[in-house]
C-alpha cells in the first residue's frame, strides 16, 4: 500500500511537472518567445472578418494575419502561433500584463489613458476607423439626435462605451444602455433587442456585411470618434515593441513598394533598388549591405513576414475584401468604408522610412 501511495504521488508530481514545463523568464519577450518556439497572440474569436474561430478550431481574420506575420518574423514559422481568446474587452489588458499573451492584436484603440495607466504600449496602427452607429433601415434614425430614449447596445470595457456616454451628454439626450461582450451585444441588436448598435465602424461593417439580410441595416454617416486599432505589447519592452512596430510598417511599406507574397522571393534574390533591398534585408550590388535587424531578430524579418502573409493590401483583400471596401479617400472616415489605403492613394496608411 505504501509503495502504491508513493507511486501515485510520483505520478502526480510528474504530471504537475509536465503541466508547468518551460516558460522561465530570462531576457526580454523576444527571447522568451524564441525559447518557447511559439507566439502567444491575444485575438478576438467572435468577430467576423477580424478574428473568429472556424469549425475546425482554427482562428482566422485580419488580425490573425498580423500574428502570423510577427511569428514569421521572430520565429521563422508563420504557424508557430497560439491564439488566446481575448474576446472579452474587460480582461484583455490583464492577459497582456500577466504574460498570458505576448501581443494583443484585437481591434484595440490607442488612447492616452490606456498608454499611461495600463501596462500597455501600442505599436503602429493596423486599422484606422471611428465609432459609428448601426441601425435598421426602417428605424427612422438618421443621426444620434433622433435617438432619445433609444436602447443602445455597446460593448463594455471599451472606449466606445465611454464615447457614447460622453456624446449623449454633449447632445443632451438620454438613452437606455445595454452592455456586454461584443458578440453578445451584436446578437442582441440583430435580434431586435436594441434599436442601435454602436462600435467601431469597422466592427459594425464586418458584422453587417456577412449577414444574409445585410441590406436591412445601415451605418449612419456620423462618426463620433477616432479609433486607431493597433497591436498592444507590455510597457517598457522596447525591443519587442520595435519588432511588432516594424513588422506592421514593413507590411505597409511592401504595399507602397509593390512587393507581394508572389514576388518577394524574386525581389529578395534580385532587388530592384536600395529601398527594397533594405526592407527585405538583402545586399544590393553597389550599395552597402543593410543590417537593420535586432539583437535576436535578423535583418530578413520583414521579408519573412511578407513571404508568409503578403503585403498589407494582400492581407486586406484576403480577409476583409469587399465586405468593407477600401475607399482610399480621407472622407471615407465618415462612412462604412475604410481609409486604410497607402498615403499615395488617398488613404492614411503611411509607412515610416525604413533605414
Amino acid at each position: 500500500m505504501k509503495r502504491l501511495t508513493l507511486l501515485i504521488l510520483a505520478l502526480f508530481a510528474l504530471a504537475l511537472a509536465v503541466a508547468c514545463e518551460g516558460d522561465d523568464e530570462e531576457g526580454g519577450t523576444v527571447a522568451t518567445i524564441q525559447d518557447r518556439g511559439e507566439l502567444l497572440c491575444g485575438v478576438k474569436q467572435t468577430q467576423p472578418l477580424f478574428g473568429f474561430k472556424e469549425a475546425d478550431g482554427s482562428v482566422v481574420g485580419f488580425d490573425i494575419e498580423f500574428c502570423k506575420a510577427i511569428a514569421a518574423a521572430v520565429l521563422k514559422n508563420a504557424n508557430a502561433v497560439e491564439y488566446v481568446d481575448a474576446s472579452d474587452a474587460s480582461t484583455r489588458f490583464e492577459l497582456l500584463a500577466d504574460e498570458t499573451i505576448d501581443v494583443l492584436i484585437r481591434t484595440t484603440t490607442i488612447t492616452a489613458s490606456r498608454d499611461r495607466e495600463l501596462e500597455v504600449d501600442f505599436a503602429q496602427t493596423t486599422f484606422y476607423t471611428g465609432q459609428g452607429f448601426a441601425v435598421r433601415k426602417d428605424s427612422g434614425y438618421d443621426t444620434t439626435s433622433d435617438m432619445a430614449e433609444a436602447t443602445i447596445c455597446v460593448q463594455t470595457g471599451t472606449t466606445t462605451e465611454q464615447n457614447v456616454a460622453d456624446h449623449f451628454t454633449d447632445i443632451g439626450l438620454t438613452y437606455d444602455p445595454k452592455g456586454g461582450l461584443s458578440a453578445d451585444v451584436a446578437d442582441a441588436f440583430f435580434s431586435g433587442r436594441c434599436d442601435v448598435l454602436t462600435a467601431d465602424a469597422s466592427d459594425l461593417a464586418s458584422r453587417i456585411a456577412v449577414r444574409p439580410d445585410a441590406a436591412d441595416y445601415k451605418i449612419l454617416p456620423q462618426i463620433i470618434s477616432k479609433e486607431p486599432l493597433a497591436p498592444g505589447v507590455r510597457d517598457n519592452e522596447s525591443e519587442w515593441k520595435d519588432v511588432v512596430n516594424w513588422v506592421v510598417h514593413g507590411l505597409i511599406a511592401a504595399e507602397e513598394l509593390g512587393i507581394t507574397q508572389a514576388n518577394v522571393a524574386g525581389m529578395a534574390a534580385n532587388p530592384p533598388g536600395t529601398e527594397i533591398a533594405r526592407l527585405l534585408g538583402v545586399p544590393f550590388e553597389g550599395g552597402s549591405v543593410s543590417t537593420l535587424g535586432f539583437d535576436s531578430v535578423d535583418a530578413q524579418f520583414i521579408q519573412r513576414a511578407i513571404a508568409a502573409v503578403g503585403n498589407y493590401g494582400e492581407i486586406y483583400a484576403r480577409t476583409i475584401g469587399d465586405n468593407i471596401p477600401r475607399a482610399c479617400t480621407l472622407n471615407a472616415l465618415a462612412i462604412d468604408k475604410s481609409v486604410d489605403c497607402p498615403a499615395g492613394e488617398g488613404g492614411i496608411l503611411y509607412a515610416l522610412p525604413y533605414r
Partner: protein
Amino acid sequence: MATALPPEAAPVPLIHRRRFRDFATQGVYVAITALVFAYVLVSLDLREFGFTFLNEPAAFNVANQWLVDVDGVTNSRITMYMVGVWSSVRAVMVAIALSTIVGVVVGVARLSNNWLIARLAMLFVEIFRNTPLLVQVVLVYSVFLVGMPLIENVISIGDIVFVSNRGVAIPWPVPNSGLWGAPHWFAGLWVLALLISAVVAMRARARRQELERETGVSQNANRRALILFAAGAVISYVVLGAPVWIDAPIVSGTHYAEGMTIEPEFAALVIGLTLYTGSFIAEVVRAGIQALPRGQTEAANAVGLSAYQRLTLVILPQALRQIIPSVTNQYLNVNKNSSLAYAVLYDDLFRVATIVQNKAGHALEMFFVIIVTYMAISFLLSAVMNFFNSRVTVHEV
C-alpha cells in the same frame, strides 16, 4: 490493587505532554501560516492600495435601472456600483420568492400518489438540477431574443400586458396626484397605512385564534382579519385622496412607456435562478417530508383532514424544521449565483465591479468590495431566515 502501581510515577517528559504538544503544534502552524501570509502580502503590490478611485467619475452607464435614475457621466464609480448592487438584490429577492414556490410545489408533487405527477416532478428536478446554471440562463435569454416577436409585432394581451423581445410590460402601481392633487409622498403614507393595517389585522387574528382555542367556538379569525385589513386599506386610500394609481403600459415607438417593463435580461437571470434553485429546494422539501414518521400522515387521515389540510397543517409545519436550514443554504447560493448576470447583459454588482476594475485597475480593492457585498447580503439573508426559523418551526417540548 493500588499498590500494584509504581509508588511514584516518573514525571512525563515535556515532549509527551499533551498541552505542550498542542502548544508547540499551534506555534509551528501559526509561524507557517504567517510566513505564507507575509509572502502573499509581499507579492501583491500594495503601494497603491486604497479606495479613493471609487470616488472618481464613472464614465460608463449602467443598464437595467429600476426606481433609480443614475447617469454615469456625473456620478461616481461607487454610485454606479451601488446601482449594480440594487440590481443584484432585486434579482435575488424575486428569484428567492419564485424558487421557493416552485420548490415547494415540485417537492410535494414528487411525493404525490399520482404516478404521472410524481414522474413529471422528478423529470423537472433531474433536468434542471443537472444542467449548468450558466447554460440555463443563456438558453432562457436566447428564447427571449429569438423566440419573442420584435417590438413592431408586439403581442398585446387586452392592451394591458405586452410581450416582445424588449421584455414584458405589465401594469404597475405608481404615485398619483389623485382626487385633490396630493403630493407624491402621499403614496408612501399609504404604503405605511397598509403596513399598519396588516400588523393590526395579524394581531387581531392571533387574539381571535387564542379565544378560539380557549372557548372552542369558531371565531372566523381569518375572515375578521381580512375585513380589518381591507377596511384599513380602503379608508386610508380615500382619506389620502387616491394617492396610488395602477398604470397600464403603452408601446411608444420602439420602447415601452408607463407601467413596468420586465426586461429580458432580468427575466432570463431570474427564471434561470428559479428553475435551478427550485429543483434543489424541491429535493430539500421532499427529504424533509420523507423524514417525518409515516404515522403523521396516517394520524392526519384518521382525524379526517383533507389532503390540502394534511399538507399545510400537519406535514409542512413539522418538515420546516429540517427544511429551513437547507433552504437557507440554497438562498445563499442564489445570492452568489446571481453573478451569472455577467453572461446576459444584466448589469449586476459583479459586472459593474469588473467595469470599474477595467477602467481603474485596483483589482484587489475591487475584489474586496465584491466579497464584502456578497457576504453582507448573505448575512442579511441568514439573519432573516434564522428569525423566521425561530418563529415558525414547531418546537419539540
